[in-house]
């Protein structure tokens, strides 16, 4: 198959030739391909390090299939599924089951994340070695949703994982500072009377874990950074050469705490939305590479869990279907950065961190995992199309550019607005 006149991330225009799932040629642009891509940007397929697929256990909110469909429609070709399922993905059997469900869906590569501690309880290490060596080849470990708050246990987990070569992805939240917390501590907690959530709860753990990563040599990935000071701590750790990478969610880049002023539970999320100043620091950190990747923290919830008073509603919002559009808005449309940085933050950097070398690059010999972007196709978001849940925070917002096709292993998983059946 010849994809003609593709504009690549660096602006070069080339034909891509695909055979048997593989990119076999990157050739001078022509007009006689099987698909005319002359009006499209073609980027390496996106890789999400932070997805909640909810299966097994919470299939009323999402399944591996519906999450894969949402991902494909958003330009993704690989995603990492968080461990907070039921049963928890803290053993080789469960992670293998999730990986197999991903293969059966066949729309994106589903890579399970293993729990750091048994049952996400923060007490005893899970079988990280067995998960690492299982068919699911787990490379990222996280208790996401919960922070591994016990410093000694975190140090042990890092010491244990370091020789294997895995990554610890930490949800940084000092629990004693956030008992019952609901929204950012500051203006919004004052307006709403909802309990404040200080950013120091996050920053103190980021600093602690950065020090532990330096001491143990274990790679640390800081999930969903939300604050200006958090970005500065990561910048400092990287300057010191600590093995630290960081992620920001689409929602923390464009939404602020003020969204919560009317108690609209779509905007209830952990960690909470912060201030305008924080979003600006996050964008700056993303532009200069302090923050390596955009990870969605796609967190679907059935309507019952959200149609509640704020305190009782579930934390989380979806992101897979709009993450690219947010990335385009803050990096490219804003003029602050460019397509190459977008491709890096959405694809090559997460592929490197997660160890999926068949994603993240457009090169001869690489698996053909591609996202096709129409830079001028604007879209007003009317909610999720493929995710099973409706907790989409972007509903009503308009974006300037859209994903039009996605190619996974040489075949279209999403084409002309339709996910492959």
């Amino acid at each position: 198959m010849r994809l003609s006149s593709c504009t690549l991330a660096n602006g070069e225009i080339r034909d891509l030739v695909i055979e048997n799932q593989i990119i076999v040629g990157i050739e001078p642009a022509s007009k006689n391909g099987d698909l005319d891509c002359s009006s499209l940007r073609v980027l390496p397929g996106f890789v999400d390090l932070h997805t909640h697929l909810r299966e097994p256990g919470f299939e009323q909110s999402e399944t591996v299939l519906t999450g894969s469909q949402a991902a494909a429609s958003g330009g993704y070709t690989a995603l990492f599924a968080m461990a907070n399922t039921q049963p928890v993905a803290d053993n080789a059997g469960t992670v293998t089951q999730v990986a197999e469900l991903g293969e059966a869906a066949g729309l994106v590569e589903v890579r399970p994340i293993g729990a750091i501690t048994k049952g996400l309880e923060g007490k005893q290490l899970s079988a990280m070695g067995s998960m690492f060596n299982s068919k699911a080849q787990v490379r990222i470990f996280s208790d996401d949703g919960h922070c591994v708050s016990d410093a000694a246990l975190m140090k042990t987990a890092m010491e244990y994982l370091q020789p294997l070569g895995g990554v610890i992805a930490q949800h940084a939240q000092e629990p004693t500072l956030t008992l019952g917390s609901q929204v950012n501590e500051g203006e919004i907690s004052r307006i709403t009377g909802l309990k404040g959530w200080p950013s120091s709860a996050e920053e103190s753990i980021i600093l602690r874990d950065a020090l532990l990563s330096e001491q143990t040599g274990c790679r640390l990935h800081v999930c969903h950074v939300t604050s200006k000071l958090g970005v500065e701590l990561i910048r400092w750790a990287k300057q010191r050469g600590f093995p630290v990478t960081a992620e920001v969610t689409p929602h923390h880049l464009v939404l602020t705490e003020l969204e919560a002023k009317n108690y609209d539970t779509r905007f209830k999320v952990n960690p909470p939305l912060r201030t305008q100043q924080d979003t600006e620091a996050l964008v700056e950190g993303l532009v200069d590479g302090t923050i390596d990747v955009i990870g969605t923290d796609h967190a679907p919830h059935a309507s019952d869990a959200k149609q509640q008073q704020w305190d009782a509603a579930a934390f989380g919002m979806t992101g897979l279907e709009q993450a690219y559009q947010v990335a385009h808005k803050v990096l490219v449309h804003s003029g602050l950065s460019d397509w190459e940085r977008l491709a890096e933050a959405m694809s090559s950097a997460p592929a490197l961190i997660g160890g999926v070398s068949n994603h993240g690059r457009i090169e001869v010999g690489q698996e053909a995992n591609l996202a096709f972007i129409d830079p001028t196709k604007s879209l007003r978001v009317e909610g999720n199309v493929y995710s099973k849940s409706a907790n989409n925070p972007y509903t009503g917002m308009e974006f300037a550019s859209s994903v039009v096709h996605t190619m996974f292993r040489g075949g279209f998983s999403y084409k002309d607005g339709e996910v492959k059946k």
Partner: protein
Amino acid sequence: MRHLLSTDELNRETAIEILDSASQLSRLNEDTTRKFPTLQGKTVVTLFYEDSTRTRISFELAAKRLSADVINFSAGGSAVNKGENLKDTAQTLEALGADALIVRHSASGASYNLAHNGWTSAAIVNAGDGTNQHPTQALLDALSLRQGFNIDDGKGLDGKKILIVGDILHSRVARSNLALLPTLGAEVEAVGPGSFSPGCKYANLDEALETKPDAVMMLRVQKERMNQPLIPSDKEYSRFWGLTEQRVKKVPNCLILHPGPMNRGLEISTYAAESNNSLVLSQVKNGLAVRMAVLSMILGGKNETI
């Protein structure tokens, strides 16, 4: 006025209108014929997810004085204990024809959700939501202050300096007054120990009283809302921030308010509570009148929007 959710939403004109109406009702409440036909045929539900006998009976009596049918729904022993959520309860009460829900809930924003999420078309009166708002409390405080200062109907609290003392962080009473009293022209300052009142400029109540307030509002220390003790001890709190006899004597013309129930000997001394400057009992009396005024404004046919 369709709902009463927050004193943030009240402009000066509407607030004074409520106070004037309450002031009139409070005089009528002294008469022997104390029942008015205003809400005949209307159904009012007190929907209380938190225990509060004082507020509930005040609202109940207010609705009954206005001839409404009143149903008391309390979370204990109801469907709520069987797992029913707020939305379903609201829809059930709507199906039974409730015209107004008077709501007390532990979650901040619960009343806002009921009013704006399309779960019910009943009018919502917030009777206290979490640490957020308790608007009728602030209105009754304002009415008590206006009477205490001998200010005429039709006027606000212009130029008066009011100190709110204590657990600002956990107090919907403080929050409601911090929004309402400045709307009425008063100068309001919230003070207390730093863990209760972040950013407070004074080390103790003596320093705060040197600003010569016209009134002090002592808040209840709400131990039940603290995840962990935010003050070292009752004794230390009382020593630094309690309205003791000596402190009352330093500000002889200062009016004293407390929303009740009082922790005597902790935030307020018996001397202060029972002094001539104490408005505590007029607050209770005005509570009834303010709630009657609010219910008649919301359900009685006037259609102002705020």
